């Protein structure tokens, strides 16, 4: 893994909401190409904010974010930085807890929306790949169905296909299974696993311990706005060093 290039590099990242809500406190993090990193931590520890800073859905207050060689400095609001942020977003896909599919479009229209609107490709040009993606997430038969007719698990799988249509280098998962009925979690996790197998760089905030244990290369435990411990899952789960990690893991593993 060490000889791979760095895909995501976060340096001294701070995020302050309002005036004094210091949510991220100087995070440094390197993620290599093809690496799967799972971020764990108690509620309010800043996991989601960290993830959302990587594609600038939250604007960092200080620090730098580098994705695939493109570096953006927080605090600089120049045209040039804006352009770089758009480029970073094209390189990163994101899946949300509440799916956020576009309800006025069918599954296939959702999937081609990125390539058509953002990359300016012709519809006919993107449809074969979009169909391939829907097939890959097991939803070929839902091609022309609107999201309101899909189950949560199906919606999240379409959302993954929608992100993948942009051919991203990194996928960000923000609690992708938290809004799902328990019996639907498996189908989404299975897609995430296959994505990891194909060598996608993944950063995921998730409570799916099975995914963290079996698929992640690295687990990061956050608390109070910074990671307190990180390492391979077997190490973190069996032998956490930090007292706070132990408490947190004891809590969720029971």
């Amino acid at each position, binding site marked *: 893994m060490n000889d791979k290039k760095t895909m995501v590099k976060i340096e001294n990242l701070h995020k302050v909401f309002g005036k004094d809500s210091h949510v991220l406190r100087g995070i440094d993090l390197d993620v290599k190409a093809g690496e799967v990193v799972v971020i764990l931590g108690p509620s309010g520890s800043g996991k989601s904010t960290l993830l959302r800073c990587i*594609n600038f*859905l939250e604007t960092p207050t200080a620090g730098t974010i580098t994705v695939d060689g493109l570096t953006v400095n927080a605090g600089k609001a120049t045209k040039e930085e804006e352009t770089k942020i*758009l*480029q970073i*977003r*094209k390189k*990163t*896909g*994101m899946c*949300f807890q*509440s799916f*956020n*599919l*576009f*309800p*006025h*479009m*069918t599954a296939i229209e959702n999937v081609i*929306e*990125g390539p058509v*609107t*953002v990359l300016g490709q012709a519809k006919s040009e993107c449809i074969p790949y979009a169909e391939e993606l829907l097939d890959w997430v097991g939803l070929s038969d839902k091609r022309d169905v*609107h*999201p*309101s*007719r899909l189950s949560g698990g199906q919606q999240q799988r379409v*959302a993954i296909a*929608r*992100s993948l249509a*942009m051919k991203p280098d990194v996928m960000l998962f923000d609690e992708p299974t938290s809004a799902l009925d328990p019996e639907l979690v498996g189908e989404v996790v299975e897609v995430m696993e296959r994505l990891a197998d194909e060598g996608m760089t993944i950063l995921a905030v998730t409570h799916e311990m099975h995914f963290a244990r079996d698929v992640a290369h690295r687990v990061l435990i956050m608390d109070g706005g910074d990671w307190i411990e990180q390492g391979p899952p077997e190490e973190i789960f069996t032998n956490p060093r930090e007292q706070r990690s132990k408490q947190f893991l004891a809590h969720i593993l029971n």
Partner: protein
Amino acid sequence: MSETQETGGCTIPPEAHAVLEEIENRQKRFKRNTTIALLSLTAFIFFLFYVIKLDFMFMGKWVGFILTGMGFTLLVSFLAISLACILSILGALGRLSKNPIANSIATAYVSLIRGTPLLVQVYMWYLALPQLGKALEDIGIPGIQNALTLPAIPAGILALGVCYGAYMTETVRAGIQSITIGQREAAKALGMTESQAMRRIIFPQALRIIIPPISNEFIAMIKDSSLVSLMGVWELSYRAIKIGRRYFQSLEMLIMVAFIYWLMCVVLQYVQEKIEAHMARGDRRVH
């Protein structure tokens, strides 16, 4: 859901059939009774017309003349609503803009126009604007007085369009704001710019929500277009009032013109329903 449910070999018990039938009958009875009530109401109104000796011959004689005014009414309404739609989209974007100039212009527009009577605004465009033109010409802008002296119909279209644009600005703004933040985030995460997200994701969804209130505005405008009669335009209501006064038969003329307005609004309501049904594709609530 469109999928039929598997009953798995279990049949629906006979007493349940009776319940289902009763529910269906209740709906049928309701429909039948409403139709009867509506028909009785109509009959009663015609009976009233008979009792008060409404002069249908007189109405028949003038209906053609009154209807010729419908052209003006429709022309003014359609052009004014088109202007109002454009202004309301610009206004809503301004109200939501982070640009202080755009934001304050939009806010002032809505506040000023909503806060003054339409009647005053109509006269402002028609009577006061030429005076402003003269004042500007006097301080050295050539030709401005002529440009600002508007004929009745353009003045009416501007007055109605600008006024309704202000009300509709708030409707459009509310529609845009009703779309969840997650939609904008999903669009941004794909790499869309603000304007792409607005055009492709936010606005199409907002449009569906604002169709009923916008139709309301359109229906109200059809009727408010009668205000252009103030400037001597021979539209529907102006003709009816003129003829009614001339022959002392205002009752006939006003009932007739009211009926014509009502018919136009019924047609619009029908169009609204069609558009709404078309826009509701993919919405679970309607199935």
